[in-house]
């Protein structure tokens, strides 16, 4: 027998293999759904068939032991069927409602809380951070864990005016759509990479370092007689690309890296159009393991929203209704020059009227 052929370009497995029978049968034929309680919903098909979903939070970073535990739970309660959501929650798909409570009990016991539906905070989508990315200005998992330990009641309850979506990214590359979230927590570098001129010639190809910079900020230079590069600091937007191709250009900086907070973005079209998140808190220090400053501000913003927004209003809709001056007043965030855009088309965000609340 000949050696097995090396398979390539087969693509992902066909999803049909993984669908529960009730889904296959009622595909495209769902009629309505209802949230039965936080973390549990039922979808009813035109045929009258029902599928129950139990949603639980995961930390996104999952051990294979946990995957096997989830698989066992799916076997026990769901005929082996489960899925994940775009926000890193796991959903167990049941047909027998009698299995809902025992499943919830097992999930809760193992530390995976059930919730995240409706007018609540769903899981925080986030990035790799210090666990795995080279350009991270902060850790991701640790900040997210710290925030969600504090906001946990809003995951297991449904007491917010509307949905609240929080996202986290550890640098401006923003893996994940943090820039259109109700609250976006974003790691920021605040200085151009530091060049280790003795290592550049050994570790890096100068032409590829120069080419790597999207803004043309890196140019060849002779330093102390040796070939190296220099950075035009005003042109650097801290993307870390040069560091990606040249480890001697370290973008990470323990003293000057930190975290910023942005508010009022959304992707859904409900009521108002999708919008970007806007700068609220420009810079907070990295303070592991619990990042109290970041947690404190996020919590404060959530509470402010919970107290003041009208039913169904998202964070950005509420702020637009009351106006940004009042938002800064209510939140106590000091307004600074950093809040005023100075990038391309910056003038579009200047106020061009005297419609001002004068109190």
């Amino acid at each position: 027998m000949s050696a097995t052929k090396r398979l390539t370009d087969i693509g992902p497995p066909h999803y049909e293999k993984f669908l529960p029978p009730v889904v296959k049968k009622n595909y495209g034929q769902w009629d309505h759904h209802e949230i039965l309680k936080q973390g549990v919903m039922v979808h009813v098909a035109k045929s009258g068939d029902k599928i129950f979903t139990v949603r639980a939070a995961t930390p996104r970073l999952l051990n294979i032991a946990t995957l096997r535990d989830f698989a066992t739970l799916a076997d026990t309660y769901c005929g082996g069927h489960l899925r994940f959501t775009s926000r890193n929650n796991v959903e167990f798909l049941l047909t027998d409602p009698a299995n809902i409570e025992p499943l919830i009990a097992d999930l809760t016991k193992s530390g995976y809380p059930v919730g995240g539906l409706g007018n609540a905070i769903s899981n925080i989508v986030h990035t790799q951070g210090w666990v795995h990315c080279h350009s991270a200005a902060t850790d991701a998992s640790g900040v997210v864990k710290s925030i969600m330990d504090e906001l946990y009641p809003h995951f297991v309850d449904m007491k917010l005016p509307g949905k609240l979506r929080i996202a986290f990214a550890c640098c401006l590359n923003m893996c994940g759509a943090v820039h259109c979230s109700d609250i976006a927590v974003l790691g920021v570098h605040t200085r151009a990479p530091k060049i280790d001129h003795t290592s550049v010639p050994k570790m890096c190809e100068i032409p590829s370092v120069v080419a790597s910079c999207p803004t043309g900020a890196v140019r060849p230079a002779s330093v102390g007689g040796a070939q190296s590069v220099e950075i035009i600091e005003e042109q650097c937007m801290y993307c870390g690309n040069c560091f990606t191709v040249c480890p001697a250009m370290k973008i990470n900086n323990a003293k000057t890296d930190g975290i910023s907070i942005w508010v009022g973005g959304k992707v859904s079209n409900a009521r108002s159009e999708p919008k970007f998140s806007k700068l609220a808190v420009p810079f907070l220090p990295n303070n592991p393991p619990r990042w109290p400053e970041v947690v404190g501000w996020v919590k404060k913003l959530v509470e402010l929203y919970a107290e003041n927004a009208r039913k169904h209003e998202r964070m950005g809709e509420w702020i637009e209704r009351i106006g940004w001056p009042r938002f800064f007043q209510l939140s106590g965030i000091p307004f600074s020059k950093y809040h005023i855009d100075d990038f391309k088309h910056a003038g579009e965000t200047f106020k061009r009227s005297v419609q001002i609340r004068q109190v």
Partner: protein
Amino acid sequence: MSEKRATPLLDELEKGPWPSFVKELKKSADTPAVNDLLGQLERSYEEKIGHWKHGGLVGVMGYGGGVIGRYSDLQAEFPECAEFHTLRINQPAGWFYTSDALRTIADIWERHGSGLTNMHGSTGDIILLGAKTQALEPIFAELTAAGFDLGGSGSDMRTPSCCVGQARCEWACYDTMGACYDFTQTYQDELHRPAFPYKYKLKFAGCPNDCVASVARSDMAFIGTWRDDIKVDNEGVRAAAAGGVDIQKEICDMCPTRCMAWDGSTLAIDNSNCVKCMHCINVLPKAVKPGDDRGAAILIGAKAPIVGGALLSSVFVPFIKMEPPYEDLKELISRIWDLWAEHGKNRERVGEFIQRIGLGNFLEQIGLDPVPEMISAPRSNPYIFFGDEVSEGGQA
């Protein structure tokens, strides 16, 4: 194996009600690579700085994407995680699994890697975190034998993703999972062999709620919508009102075009002014539903800030029926890719490319007619570069 690393700072993050990634890491603390990872991460927490570097292309034979090379910059101290590469595995559409499929992935990953995963990565792939270079080919062989393949990375078509769509959502205006699978299979070469100026993401959302954030995160967003009348079951509306929903305040007054009227027993909609925002449907899921003439709007050009600032995508095709084999769409995509591949600059996303050359010129190049649905307002500046279509007699 080296001694178990002490992690007093990380241990703090085992406490509290939210699931702990540190607990997940520690479930593999006996694996040397994870033990060293814990040590290195603790160091990052002490020093407030990351300790990874990129350096060196790694991958599997014949593929240019799907593996991200990752190396420790403290290799002498943490030798077991010196090489700690990421594999992106193309997820099944809608992120549905059977327990056996999950076990298969877990078993392969236990044999060859750290045992750490992300379910899922930002783009949607299954992420396997922490492989040594020599393990990549064996992992790939086992994954493909089990029916899985790598996803995208670098300047290629990235792994497409979609919402749960018609599998479990009554609002899905087309078959998102079917479309996602179809396009993914069609573009295997573009997915695995980077040949574009930069990345190109496709995302499929079944309705304007856009649960996959396609408007913000994809170069091409397929967002389900409909053309005919919203379906209203007034008995259901009355039931909701009796159940405590303030129809006037919560529905009519929050409609962006104020196209609804409620007289206490009937909800009337001026459908010609409905912009399909989903608000009334979201609040009254039993009583109000999208119409039957369903399809999708296609938007183009979203991206995160790097390089020229973040962009939301903008309307490109206001409505199209989404029916396999999607030939018109694929034809359109090839025209876009041809133009962008030829004239786009290195690391210029298609959204930035369009901004540079102008949407009008872009449309002309790919042979699509401009329509007013593409803009929020016509230009207000008079700097128009008139072409030959304005004749000397002054007639357009």
